């Protein structure tokens, strides 16, 4: 049977009067309904602009298929690059102790009295580093979490020194991050952080009244004033871009996200990550006061995103990190290292969480699950008892990887956003009891679909104004550079011919 053209793999979804098509490597385009009909019925004129655009986006082919296959295979491999890096993110839970008691805290920590039972011992820390360094990746990231990591600063110090020594031969690039509430920050801490080029990540929920509503000291009272003071101090002390903040959207701030964003801009933070609250840990216990529906989140998110885009129009460079991540997946040929949105899931494959006793979990949520309910489903092993091979190359991780490969899950397999999306096995487990097969029915999916819909509405409009802002986020460059605003002549040399 001779046809004018052959299909190459694509997915589609109707979008009002248009149809969105996406291919396996993330190239996308919009077709009008009648164009789509003639395309799938093989009636399209192969000399028409519409067909040439489809051919350009590698959804149809008129010449030899083998060239296209090899070509697309290279692009596909690029998209799955993170697999070759394997586990790059290693999160060390340095202590369970915390001087705060935030209402939505999913770390469910204990008090800050000096009880070593709740700390990661230095010996355990070193053993965890040994395991982490077995990962083949050339670029690693070690994150110190808690509780409040600064309460066990000695362990951080020892682990960093030990890592530097252990890495001295291979000299792999290792980034360190301390996730802290900033209330216990001292000169000594900052000096060590600066010396070792360690970044700080903190939580800022918004202006004082919002922040203090949820993020309270264990002894009572808000933390805003101290956090802002120490945030400014750290920003000046440490290198540029070594201080960042994120926030959790809760019932207290969901209707006032623009006030939160204003606060971030005031605190001179370059970006915000609007995270939807996870129904784990203390958040689940306090759901009535902190929780909200996925629909509520999506509405608030859209409003906040438009607000941030407007700020960018006004000349303030400010990024919404989740949107920037999704746009990187949509508009660039590259893969991303964000473990929560990968197929197969980055949980375990991309990142691992080390508990104070050396238990290794595929993600922090998995660790929390075990802590709260003794459910060790997602525990890969222990750094003292098990080998790296049995933990990271074992049957359990393989099963998780297989269950979270959304290319093969019902609902996800045919979803138009599949090439950009990923899987959260713990969420699926909590909602449906499986490792990810019911991905398409989780609240996680619902939220992601809605945000993809939103972003593709922008992309369909194809307005340079907003697309330029998106690219300034993706490439972390000033909007004026993207817009080609600053003029000048090219002084560089070129070979004359």
């Amino acid at each position, binding site marked *: 049977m001779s046809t004018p053209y052959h299909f190459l*793999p694509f997915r589609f979804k109707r979008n009002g009067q248009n149809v969105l098509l996406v291919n396996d490597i993330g190239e996308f385009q919009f077709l009008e309904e009648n164009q789509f009909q003639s395309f799938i019925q093989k009636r399209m004129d192969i000399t028409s602009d519409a067909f040439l655009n489809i051919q350009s986006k590698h959804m149809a082919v008129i010449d030899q298929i083998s060239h296209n296959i090899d070509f697309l295979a290279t692009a596909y491999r690029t998209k799955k690059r993170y697999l070759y890096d394997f586990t790059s993110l290693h999160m060390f839970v340095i202590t369970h102790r915390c001087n705060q008691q935030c209402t939505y805290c999913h770390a469910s920590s204990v008090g800050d009295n000096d009880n070593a039972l709740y700390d990661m011992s230095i010996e355990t820390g070193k053993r965890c580093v040994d395991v982490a360094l077995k990962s083949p990746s050339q670029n690693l990231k070690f994150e110190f979490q808690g509780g409040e990591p600064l309460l066990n600063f000695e362990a951080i110090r020892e682990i960093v020194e030990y890592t530097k020594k252990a890495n001295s031969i291979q000299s792999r690039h290792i980034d360190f991050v301390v996730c802290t509430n900033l209330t216990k920050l001292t000169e000594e801490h900052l000096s060590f952080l600066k010396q070792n080029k360690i970044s700080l990540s903190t939580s800022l929920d918004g202006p004082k009244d919002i922040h203090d509503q949820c993020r309270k000291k264990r002894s009572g009272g808000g933390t805003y004033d101290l956090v802002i003071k120490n945030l400014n101090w750290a920003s000046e002390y440490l290198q540029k871009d070594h201080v960042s903040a994120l926030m959790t959207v809760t019932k207290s701030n969901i209707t006032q996200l623009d006030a939160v964003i204003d606060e971030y801009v005031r605190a001179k933070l370059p970006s915000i990550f609007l995270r939807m609250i996870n129904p784990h840990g203390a958040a689940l216990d306090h759901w009535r006061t902190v929780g909200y529906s996925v629909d509520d989140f999506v509405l608030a998110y859209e409003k906040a995103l438009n607000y941030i885009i407007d700020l960018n129009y006004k000349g303030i460079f400010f990024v919404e990190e989740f949107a920037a991540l999704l746009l990187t997946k949509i508009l660039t040929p590259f893969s991303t290292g964000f473990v929560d949105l990968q197929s197969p899931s980055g949980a375990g494959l991309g990142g691992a969480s080390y508990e104070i006793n050396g238990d290794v979990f595929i993600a922090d949520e998995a660790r929390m699950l075990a802590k709260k309910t003794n459910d060790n489903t997602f525990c890969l092993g222990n750094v003292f008892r098990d080998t790296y091979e049995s933990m990271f190359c074992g049957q359990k991780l393989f099963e998780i990887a297989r269950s979270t490969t959304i290319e093969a899950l019902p609902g996800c397999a045919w979803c138009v956003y599949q090439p950009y999306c990923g899987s959260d096995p713990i969420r699926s487990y909590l909602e449906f009891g499986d490792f990810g097969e019911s991905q398409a*029915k989780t609240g996680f999916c619902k939220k992601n679909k809605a945000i993809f819909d939103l972003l593709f509405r922008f992309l369909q409009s194809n307005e340079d104004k907003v697309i330029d802002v998106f690219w300034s986020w993706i490439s972390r460059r000033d909007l004026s550079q993207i817009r080609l605003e600053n003029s000048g002549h090219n002084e560089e040399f070129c070979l004359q011919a």
Partner: protein
Amino acid sequence: MHINQVVKWELNLCLLNQAILVYSTNRSRISLQIDWQNTSKDRRRHRGILPVSNPQRLSEGNYYMQSEKSEGNITIEFDARIYSEQAVKSAIYDFNIAAQISLKGDDKEIILVILQSPVDSRSSIEQQIYKSVLDHQVRIDVEKEFGPIRKLILAQAFFPCENLDQIIDEMDL
């Protein structure tokens, strides 16, 4: 896709009724067991097969489908020469509704019964189901053509081979 595996679906249809749909496949027929749950406080469960009204002959409409409403259910028929069970199942999965799927007339018709949908949303859910099954059938049809190509791309991405041309010739794409 894992549709053909044994999957437990938990579906929440409307405020008044809940049904738990469990199905398994065998070669020629899909048989369903439906568990009813009342929302009464003591939540009694009973098993039963839902009654399906007599389907009428298919008319030559645009969608090759016909729908009929009876006893709070909606019955839609699909011409099995054009639509596959797969398409209907995928549509149900997307809509997250309680339904019964069966084959009739020597496998020439697929009968879809949507259980107890609220009265005011009936016409819209019918239209949406029609469109969804159509789209899913399109997906299945185009997948027949590019399915092998997709597998080749994945294989070439992670286990590249020198003689790709030869393999493609043998596959007769």
